[in-house]
């Protein structure tokens, strides 16, 4: 099948959505601009015009309200934030209005909106430009929250999100944009709310979000060299959360690692651990572990960022600790070519 990059898949999803439904439009700072939100919106303004692919003032709060207002006139806006950190300015509109819009008017209103939130890591983005706030939105009833990992899902889930009448918050990790996957040319939908088993295994379950799912696959490779078969689950959707798939896996393996791009404490992996143990804590033969950002703001210096953003080794070390073998038995971490791990792992080329 055709292989394209994640950013191209996102672009195509929007292209086809704009083409297929005149009520769809994109908006955000720089959306029609020359760098096209990391290429994800490049060319769209030329095809669909600046009435449907629109730039906006840097008024995140107000423009979220404007986008919500447009739904009243029948539009389905996709609002794009270059960094989720900027969406903190729009929290009132998102949380008090958008998320509750359908409920608080007794079902008479709908907010068919999509928020594309870009998250990332590395290269000195620093404290105000590299948060990963999926836990916030997942905590607010009224949103769907998704984190596509593969190019295939990036396209299919975004098309589904745009068609969905609920407001859907999509988290896209910048480091996924350059990664390839098999993506059909025709439009297609991927159902929201289902996790995907990326790799089967019987010894330990690694459930992960977004870029961390690729780190998990790499960890699974490393574990396989020791004969350990890790099952890797791409969580894909936080709300609705596919507890069933994760639970079934843990029931089989008896061991669980949850890896997320955000801060661990009070983060999404806590919910996943809780959902599992609440249902039946006896299926866990070993204590579970969570991998995520440590409890400090994101440092800029590469020397500090190095230990701040977890990598596959952190996952395989956690597996070693859970399964009770020496970390030193794991293969050594590959050279990156550079001194730091603050650019995308060059071995993650895809296709995934």
């Amino acid at each position, binding site marked *: 099948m055709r292989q394209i990059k994640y950013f191209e898949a996102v672009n195509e999803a929007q292209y086809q959505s704009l083409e297929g439904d005149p009520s769809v439009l994109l908006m955000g700072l720089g959306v029609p601009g020359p760098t096209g939100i990391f290429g994800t919106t490049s060319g769209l303004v030329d095809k669909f015009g600046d009435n449907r692919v629109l730039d906006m003032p840097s008024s995140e*709060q107000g423009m979220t309200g404007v986008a*919500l207002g447009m739904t009243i*006139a029948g539009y389905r806006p996709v609002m794009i934030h270059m960094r989720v950190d900027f969406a903190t300015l729009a929290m009132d509109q998102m949380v008090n209005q958008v998320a509750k819009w359908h409920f*608080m008017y007794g079902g008479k209103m709908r907010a068919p909106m999509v928020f594309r939130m870009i998250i990332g890591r590395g290269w000195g983005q620093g404290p105000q430009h590299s948060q990963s706030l999926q836990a916030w939105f997942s905590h607010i009833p009224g949103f769907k929250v998704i984190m596509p990992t593969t190019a295939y899902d990036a396209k299919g889930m975004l098309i589904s999100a745009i068609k969905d*009448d609920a407001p859907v918050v999509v988290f896209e990790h910048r480091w996924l944009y350059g990664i390839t996957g098999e993506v059909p040319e025709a439009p297609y939908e991927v159902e929201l709310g289902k996790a995907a088993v990326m790799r089967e295994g019987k010894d330990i379950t690694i459930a992960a979000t977004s870029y961390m799912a690729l780190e998990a696959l790499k960890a699974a490779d490393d574990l396989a060299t020791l004969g350990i078969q890790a099952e890797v689950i791409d969580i894909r959707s936080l709300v609705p959360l596919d507890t069933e798939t994760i639970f079934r896996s843990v029931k089989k393996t008896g061991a669980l690692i949850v890896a997320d791009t955000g801060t661990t404490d009070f983060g999404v992996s806590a919910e996943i651990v809780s959902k599992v143990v609440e249902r039946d804590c006896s299926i866990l033969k070993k204590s579970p572990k969570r991998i995520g950002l440590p409890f400090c703001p994101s440092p800029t210096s590469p020397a500090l960022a190095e230990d701040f953003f977890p990598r596959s080794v952190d996952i395989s070390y956690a597996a070693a600790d859970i399964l009770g073998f020496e970390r030193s038995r794991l293969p050594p971490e590959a050279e990156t070519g550079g001194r730091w791990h603050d650019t995308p792992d060059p071995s993650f080329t895809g296709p995934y």
Partner: protein
Amino acid sequence: MPQIENLSSPVTNLSADDRLAMHFSMLRVRRVEEGIAARYSEQEMRCPTHFCVGQEAVPVGISAHLTPYDYVFSGHRSHGHYLAKGGDLKAKLCELYGKEAGCARGRGGSQHLIDLEAGFVASAPILAGTLPIAVGAVYGSSKTNPERISVVYFGDGATEEGAFHEAMNFAAVKNLPVVFVCENNLYSVHSDFSVRQPPGRSIAKLGPAHGIKSQTADGNDIVTVWNLGQEAVLRARSGDGPTLLEFMTYRWLEHCGPNDDAALKYRTKEEISAWQSKCPIVRSDVALRRDGLLTNDLLKDFERKISEEIETAFEYAKSMPFPDPADLMTFTLPEKA
């Protein structure tokens, strides 16, 4: 009996029928509020309720220029805006009683009135929250329906929120048919204007910064409101962009709830009674009688009609069923349309 300080401003192209209809509408808004107030202590309307007694002229004078097709948005003090735009009374009272037949199926209460058929699109209590929504709605609709306009009501306090400026800026960028209507009643809850806004501030000064035509005026004079409303609505309909109207008015009752609040002393009794003497309904009454349009009989007729409607509506609301508890989660995420 309070002194009438100001009579109505000169009547221009406003017909006698329209003047009477507006009088009726103001009276109806007032009597509904009084009806709610009278029953509020029964504790069956279990939600925070912001009364608009004293502020009836603004929504009535503005709504006179609107069709159900036009969008109206409001905030926490929305009762007058809703009724004047033609919002259904029974559905509103059911909403206050938390009933399934409420306009928001009981989910929202007094602060979330809605009547889509009347074009009363949404109200919500977060300050300035509906301003950008009103702008966005008409930005969307103006692409295909240039004749539709959007009106959003808010208080003086709401203008302190950045979102107010963000909404005005975008309305100006796109030259949208929006009328921003500020009811400046001098207070935000119990806080005086002076701790919140600079000396000499008139809200109407904030519009021109964004290139928006703006005016400040007596909001207790129905004819003044009607005149300015006409101009602003006409400007919007003819594609000449947004307007900001500031109407000076006064809330008679406590910030939230049906009682007098002179005891709180954040405003003087003198101030309250000075403003009560500028009652928009009394002033309209005096002017209509002066012009030979209102008689005691006609007024009695108005009152009777209104009171019958109100009694019936309350009986209806009280009799209707509550939402089924099993439906608690129902509208969290929409079903496929």
